[in-house]
């Protein structure tokens, strides 16, 4: 056995019993990565809370600027895609690659639709005058600000935090869709996942559920509160 | 050129310098122990042919000692420092009779607002002077600090007083000058390319002189 083979052995399935956590490298690595993601979103959410607490006045009431209905649908969609992901995982655990491919494809479609809807939402908001720096002058929303329906003092912060938080979440969803598509094409279709070896599915699944989890929090604090 | 701290120009100076000296003594002792120890070990235990190092797995007692002594020293130092800190910056430390002066910092100047003859800020007889801070000696002064743009920092070395001026915050700081004379107020927080020349003159007057200056200044013949 050459050392190159040994290197490969250590890092790819069928995963020998390693001396550490008894969790294979990619899964452990994903958990470590998620720890850093938690801190990243904590920074964004923490900033949002600090700014909102210290804001010079009331925050815009929910439902005026943002379209809750369409986002509620999007939230539901993401939850569904989390379920289909976990179904794909269960399927390959049972040794059924065909079923696994079906559920994975469904997950990819769900994620892609989520991103599409979010882009539609952004375009819509920007047309109405809601931008990262606040409210665009002369826009529809600017009139609401003038009428006092929306608080002038905090719209800048509202725009800054809304676009940053949802934008980064959308970016994460996009990355997830891309990596799942990649795995679908290079691993799932050629039949490389088996009952014994499905690390990629489990790992990308962890990421995907995490992104869903973050959205659950964001939806509540950004859209509903 | 002095090799020591500047003139003690406010009531804080004695306390702060005292603490400084206390730390100098503590760290001085630590410094001598460590550096002398290093030199001694370097000379004493240098490699010589045929010699082998002493084989040991360490000593718990030594570890306890050299953890406990610094720990106790640090805690003591923390308590003493905190005592002074509360007196200087504590929320209730500002003497109620303190004389108010408004300081508005902007790139790159200090706008000093005086309360006028009535001794109150925010009244009609207030007036503002650029880059000149006049204060009476022997009387607590409370500064109301605000910034136009970025973070600046109010610093008069002889008073041992420093306070950042943060945009969007109203910050108060107090001191009591003791020695009449002329000093310099510097901005000690990088605030842009003119940071190095964001400087004002500080005049500490005797109370009588200060009243006289206030009269003249209020009548408009002030400054420059």
């Amino acid at each position: 056995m050459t050392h190159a083979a040994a290197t490969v052995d250590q890092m790819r399935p069928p995963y020998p019993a390693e001396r550490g956590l008894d969790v294979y490298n990619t899964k452990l690595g994903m958990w470590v990565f998620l720890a850093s993601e938690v801190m990243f979103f904590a920074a964004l959410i923490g900033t949002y809370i600090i700014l909102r607490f210290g804001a010079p006045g009331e925050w815009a009431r929910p439902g005026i600027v943002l379209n809750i209905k369409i986002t509620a649908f999007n939230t539901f969609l993401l939850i569904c895609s989390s379920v289909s992901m976990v179904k794909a995982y269960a399927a390959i655990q049972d040794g059924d690659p065909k079923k696994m491919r079906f559920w994975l494809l469904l997950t990819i479609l769900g994620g892609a639709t989520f991103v599409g809807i979010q882009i539609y939402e952004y375009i819509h908001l920007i047309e109405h005058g809601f931008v990262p720096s606040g409210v665009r002058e002369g826009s529809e929303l600017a009139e609401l600000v003038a009428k006092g329906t929306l608080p002038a003092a905090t719209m800048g912060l509202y725009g800054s935090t809304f676009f940053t938080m949802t934008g980064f979440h959308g970016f994460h969803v996009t990355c997830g869709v891309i990596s799942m598509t990649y795995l679908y094409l290079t691993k799932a279709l050629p039949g490389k996942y088996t009952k014994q070896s499905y690390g990629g599915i489990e790992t990308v699944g962890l990421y995907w559920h995490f992104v869903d989890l973050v959205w659950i929090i964001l939806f509540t604090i950004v859209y509903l509160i | 050129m002095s090799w020591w701290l500047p003139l003690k120009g406010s009531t804080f100076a004695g306390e702060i310098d005292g603490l400084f000296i206390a730390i100098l003594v503590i760290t001085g002792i630590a410094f001598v122990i460590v550096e002398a120890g290093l030199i001694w070990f370097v000379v004493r235990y240098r490699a010589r042919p045929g010699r082998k190092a002493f084989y040991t797995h360490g000593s718990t007692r030594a570890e306890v000692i050299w953890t406990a002594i610094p720990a106790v020293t640090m805690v003591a130092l923390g308590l003493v420092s905190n005592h002074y800190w509360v007196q200087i910056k504590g929320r209730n430390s500002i003497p109620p009779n303190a004389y108010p002066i408004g300081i508005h910092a902007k790139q790159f100047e200090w706008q000093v607002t005086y309360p006028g003859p009535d001794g109150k800020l925010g009244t009609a007889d207030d007036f503002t002077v650029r880059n000149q801070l006049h204060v009476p000696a022997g009387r607590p002064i409370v500064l109301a600090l605000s910034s136009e743009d970025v973070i600046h920092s109010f610093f008069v070395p002889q008073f041992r007083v420093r306070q950042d001026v943060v945009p969007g915050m109203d910050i108060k700081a107090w001191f009591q000058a003791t020695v009449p004379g002329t000093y310099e107020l510097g901005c000690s927080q990088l605030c842009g390319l003119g940071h190095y020349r964001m400087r004002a003159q500080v005049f500490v007057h005797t109370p009588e002189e200060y009243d006289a200056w206030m009269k003249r200044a209020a009548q408009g013949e002030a400054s420059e």
Partner: protein
Amino acid sequence: METAHKRPNYILIWVYLAVLTAAELGLAFELPISRNWKLILLLFLAVWKAALVGLFFMHLKFERWNLRIMAVIPLPLAVIFILAGMSEHIW
């Protein structure tokens, strides 16, 4: 890659999540209670949903203890971070 544990009923959890989301919407826009109560209840529901995802979809409920610890370590840190920031504005 052992799956010694019994597999949770994923569809049931999906129903839970959907119902809780609907509850949030109703709470936020229909229920005539004070804003503070809404805030507390909404956060409670959000954490509940997040916990469902973490425990069942991410299988934390079934993982080894050391991996579980690793997964939750950042949470208290994140909370401390947010509280430290807030404490500045409450004085």
